[in-house]
């Protein structure tokens, strides 16, 4: 049996370092907002022969659009360019497409997405509303799931720690995206918000499995064993299922990450990081926090 509660300080410190780094990245760098939040254009195309460099195309867009923030990247895997431009109208789109076709006859458009700033605001607003509602919904559910009082820790402590774990699991992937936004110009979009919401669902899922077991053991044990010991036993009993339930999801996510469509790349990455963090937190964060909570109360 692993002595998780005994080493709780080490495990919690690791978490603290990551969460502080993540929050610092979010506060310090902020997020780069994708076109569905801020408005703008994403243009995917390929130039099969006489392929120019991404930098050359970037200069082309900068000079033709008078937009200093045009970014062009090349994806060798699919052999296509992705241009991130300000919001442009259909005539401008056509003009640019014709210019490109003249310079590079093998130019072929794969996808074009242009969203006006007002639509972006609306989508961002909806995403934030959905996020708040999910947090409220999950909080209410957690309060409901742990409504039965069982000693020695009051039921709302379980709920509070579940939500703290949820914050932990969401902060780390969000921090990663803030970091990627700063250093690799990766943007967040509605998919990112969805990924965070799904991570929330899973985080609660895992924490509930462990807490359910603690609750059950408390009822069976009737105060014979010390609380810390009982929690440690419960975590060990449920460790395999905590890891396995998330691991099957990670297997699917890895398949999506490496063989799935490129447009889902960062959606899947956010989920991968969030779900992995969730495994760690359900074993090494949630239960130690419960023991610390109980210890404080005892003093």
């Amino acid at each position, binding site marked *: 049996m692993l002595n998780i509660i005994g080493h709780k300080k080490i495990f919690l410190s690791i978490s603290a370092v990551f969460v502080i780094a993540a929050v610092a990245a979010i506060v310090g760098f902020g997020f780069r907002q994708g076109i569905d939040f801020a408005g703008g254009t994403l243009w995917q195309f390929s130039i099969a022969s006489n392929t120019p460099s991404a930098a050359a195309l970037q200069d082309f867009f900068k000079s033709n659009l008078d937009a200093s923030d045009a970014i062009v990247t090349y994806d060798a895997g699919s052999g296509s360019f992705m241009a991130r431009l300000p919001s442009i109208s259909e005539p401008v789109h056509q003009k640019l497409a014709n210019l490109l076709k003249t310079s590079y006859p093998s130019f072929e458009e794969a996808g074009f997405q242009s969203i006006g700033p*007002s639509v972006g605001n609306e*989508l961002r607003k909806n995403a934030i509303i*959905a996020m708040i509602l*999910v947090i409220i919904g999950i909080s209410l559910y957690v309060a409901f799931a742990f409504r039965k009082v069982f000693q020695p820790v009051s039921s709302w402590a379980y709920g509070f720690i579940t939500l703290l774990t949820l914050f932990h699991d969401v902060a780390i992937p969000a921090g990663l995206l803030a970091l990627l936004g700063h250093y690799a110009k990766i943007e967040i979009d509605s998919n990112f918000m969805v990924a965070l919401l799904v991570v929330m669902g899973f985080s609660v899922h895992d924490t509930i499995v462990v807490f*359910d077991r603690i609750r059950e053991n408390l009822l069976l044990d009737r105060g014979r064993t010390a609380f810390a010991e009982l929690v440690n036993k419960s975590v060990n009993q449920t460790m395999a299922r905590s890891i396995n339930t998330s691991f099957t999801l990670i297997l699917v996510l890895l398949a999506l990450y490496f*063989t*799935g469509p490129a447009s889902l790349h960062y*959606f899947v990455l956010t989920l991968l990081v969030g779900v992995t963090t969730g495994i760690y937190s359900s074993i090494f964060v949630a239960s130690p926090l419960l023991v610390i909570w109980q210890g404080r109360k005892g003093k």
Partner: protein
Amino acid sequence: MRKHPVFVLFLIVLVAVTAAFFVYPKNFGANVMPWRLGLDLIGGSHLVYNVDLSQVAAADRDSVLNGLRDVIEKRVNLFGVSEPQVYLAQSAGGSDLVVELAGIKDVSQAIQLIGETPLLDFRETDPTASSTQFIPTNLTGRYITGAQLTFDPQTQAPQVSISFNSDGANIFEQMTAKNVGKPLAIYLDNQLIEAPIVQEKISGGQAVISGKFTVDEAKTLVERFNAGALPAPITLISQQTVSPTLGADSLNKGIVAGIIGTLLVMAFMIFYYRMFGVFAALALLIYIFLTLGVFKVIPITLSLAGLAGFILTIGMAVDANILIFERIKEELKKGLSRTTAIEEGFRRAWPSIRDSNTSTIITAIILYYFTSSFVRGFALTLLIGVLVSLFSAITTTRLLLRVLVKDKNPEIKKFGN
């Protein structure tokens, strides 16, 4: 179920096998209720137009919007795209009109035909202004019932004759009566075409636009008027176009990832839980066919996000099995017989399974009701997936274990560790 497990299991397997043929996109499955795929998987265009209703009285707005939708629908039908979708949506910026064209070849031409619409209106002189200034009237293209190409009897110049409906004819009559001796301006797409002086009151609802058209210009204009003039101006505010090649590529990659993910999960379950894992793997296959069958029957338009949501549920569907198997292991350690351990395991794992899936269900429902179409596809497949997986884990796996695991052979304790 308890009394006839073999029969019920047989029934589920039969339904799953039928579903497998039904969802396979060839032969039988291709002919019966074919798959509906989203624009991001078959290629196509999703266009969002904002409708400017500032010139329309509040009471008329609904009828104008519906008229607008009908007109655009008629135009869009000219492109020969299968099942074009035209629908109204509300947004913070007012009313939006969404046009979805699946598998369209030339999107820019379509946008031109939808967007560069003849927005016709008549304007009269402003009596309060000192110089000649035109102010909009409520006589617009929405009252037009038809148009035809005619030629000026004197100059032989091409012109466009338009007919108004009875409401339009009345307005036109009153307006011409009021403006005798004054110019009445005809604007097309906010451009002044001509401003003839009204000679007398015009009844009967006929008007002639005799701008300096070429025959071709006049012909196009007539076609567009006959498809219906737009009752309110629209602006393209968002566009998403995916080429059929990129769509097919996304679809293929999504399917490949789904298959690899399924195989990985099945391999893991068999490796870790041995015999019980084989049952979970079988139940997972049944889950996949049943869920895809449900998607097709509803029917759900499967977008890339929806496909991603479904693939995630493949990783989640076995979660309930894992919880149950871990419980069964514990019960076996307590010394219960295998059949009793299985029943106990299912019974005691249920609260955890229910509790842990509830949060995902809450998330999916909120996402479905509070977000836009792209996220919605994800939320819907996630929700259906979780619900079917609950059924599959509780019913299918349980039946498989009940039918196939017996107490007789205690040596086969191949149950991982």
